């Protein structure tokens, strides 16, 4: 009997016990579905964050307070010592090679008329901010250097702020309340999306000096540096480090390029993929045990059939292959159903968050369910092949 006929025979047997076969492969179905779905969520997240970071701008270098990736002193977080003076210093030293822009950030409640927007991000930024970060104005304008240094109470808002406070209305003549002070809205930014569930469009951009006065802060959250030429990124990064080292100690700041940030993200999602995929893979093994269980039952139930087949000339290897292929057919069937379900669920999840099903996750989970079928099918198949034909024929 050739391979395809044996598969056909397996299907006949599987269909003869529909409910039982369905319950048997359920474990594999759930396992493969969750592998596909979880991996699609993580890789969707990764590609989304990557596109967001790449979308920030080009040739970007970030300076942030504290140390990332290095050894942290016991006791944890150091005090932030990054100031506007550092940013100005960098701006002077790197002038002609790169654009430097300082950022502070606070969360605050926004009010307009009787509407409130809780938990909006308020960014204090400098006038050159739009030169570094690629973002489009939908309406109005950004503020100028003189408006920034004068500490004017003016604001550029994100699209979610508009939707919450005055949906559908123009920004013209609107004055919003930020942490108790009135700010005139002069511009509206285009949609940017969200990262890790944080809506980036629920943001307000006000002059840095205004923000420092408003919130009483003199430390910076980030300094953005954008090099003029892309091949300069590495050189500017080490220059920046050297400049900052003159005033700050090495563990008080981190200078990271866009690429390094992307590789950090990639590491995090890699660990997430392994952890979630691993948990899902455990259910595949549980599913394999279910298949083994039912194959052992099947061998016992069909003892007479095995005896008969042997009497009619089946070799041990014929019997072994028949049962092994039956286990394999069960697990592959579960794998295929799981892949289809996983695809469908990730398409549904795609309505809410970005999901992508990478080909390798399909190949991996299908391959894994095949291996599970073989591993857990071998023992029952060998048991069937070793049955003594006389005893098997007499079995009641």
């Amino acid at each position, binding site marked *: 009997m050739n391979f395809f006929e044996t598969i056909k025979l397996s299907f006949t047997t599987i269909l003869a016990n529909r409910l039982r076969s369905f319950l048997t492969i359920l474990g594999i179905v759930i396992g493969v579905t969750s592998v596909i779905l979880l991996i699609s969520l993580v890789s969707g997240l990764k590609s989304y964050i990557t596109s967001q970071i790449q979308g920030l701008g080009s040739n970007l270098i970030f300076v942030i307070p504290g140390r990332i990736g290095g050894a942290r002193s016991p006791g944890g977080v150091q005090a932030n010592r990054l100031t506007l003076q550092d940013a100005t210093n960098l701006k002077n030293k790197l002038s002609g090679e790169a654009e430097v822009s300082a950022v502070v950030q606070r969360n605050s409640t926004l009010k307009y008329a009787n509407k409130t927007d809780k938990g909006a991000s308020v960014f204090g930024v400098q006038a050159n901010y739009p030169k570094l970060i690629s973002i489009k104005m939908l309406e109005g304008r950004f503020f100028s250097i003189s408006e920034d240094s004068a500490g004017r109470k003016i604001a550029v808002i994100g699209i979610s702020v508009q939707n919450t406070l005055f949906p559908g209305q123009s920004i013209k003549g609107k004055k919003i309340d930020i942490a108790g002070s009135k700010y005139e809205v002069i511009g509206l930014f285009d949609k940017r999306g969200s990262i890790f569930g944080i809506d980036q469009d629920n943001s307000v951009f006000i002059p840095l000096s205004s923000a420092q006065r408003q919130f009483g802060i003199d430390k910076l959250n980030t300094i953005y540096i954008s090099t003029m030429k892309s091949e300069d990124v590495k050189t500017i990064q080490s220059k920046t480090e050297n400049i900052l080292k003159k005033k700050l100690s090495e563990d008080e700041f981190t200078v990271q390029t866009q690429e390094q940030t992307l590789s950090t993200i990639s590491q995090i999602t890699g660990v997430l993929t392994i952890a979630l995929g691993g948990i899902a893979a455990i259910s595949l093994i549980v599913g394999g045990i279910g298949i083994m269980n039912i194959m052992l039952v099947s061998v016992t139930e069909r003892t007479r059939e095995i005896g008969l087949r042997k009497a*009619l*000339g089946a070799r*041990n290897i014929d019997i072994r292959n028949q049962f092994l292929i039956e286990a394999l057919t069960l697990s592959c069937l579960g794998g295929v159903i799981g892949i289809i379900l996983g695809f469908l669920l990730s398409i549904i999840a795609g309505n809410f968050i970005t999901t992508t099903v990478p080909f390798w996750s399909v190949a991996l989970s299908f391959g894994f369910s095949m291996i599970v079928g073989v591993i857990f099918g071998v023992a029952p198949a060998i048991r069937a092949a070793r049955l003594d034909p006389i005893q098997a024929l007499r079995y009641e």
Partner: protein
Amino acid sequence: MNLIHFINVNKIYQAAETVSFQALKNINLSVQKGEFLAIIGASGSGKSTLINIIGLLDRPTSGSYNLEGQDTTNSNQDTLAKLRNQKIGFVFQNFNLLPRTSTLQNVALPLIYSGFSKKEREQKAQQMIAEVGLSEKLNSHPNQLSGGQQQRVAIARALVTNPEIILADEPTGNLDSKSGGEIVELFQKLNKTGKTIIMITHEDNIAKHAKKIIHIKDGEIVR
């Protein structure tokens, strides 16, 4: 040349180290091609052991068994499976048809292990089913057939590989006397076409249809 030749065949079942049971004692037996042999014995007499050894499902503890002049005593399992497939057709007391499987597929079953294509298998099976007069039951499942019909399907299955020998173990044991008579008549008809038939039974009126009868008692051929 003898088709089947037993020389001093013994079969001892070792239940425990000190407990053993000798099912066959010094059996010497020759069966010629074209014979119709009935083996009569009470239950426990060793007749089933004898037919299992003839059918190559079991091996003698000592002595030798030549099938068509070839010693099978030391053949490996795969060789025995091939000989069972090509030289021997089994007919059982309880028919042993696969449930939920059509007459056609039941009869075609041994041909799977002879390496025939699906088309050839079905062609040969149809021919055999016609010979036992069940062409109109081609797609029936065993539970839709009477006992006599089921046994005829089993005989068609035994014949489909065109074996030299038909081994029947109490073929009429589960049938009423009318169907039982028909089955024996079918064996006689097959014997006339040249098949060698060895039939176990404990009923004298079934055995009398055979050309030759041997009696077995306590593992020995008594006459």
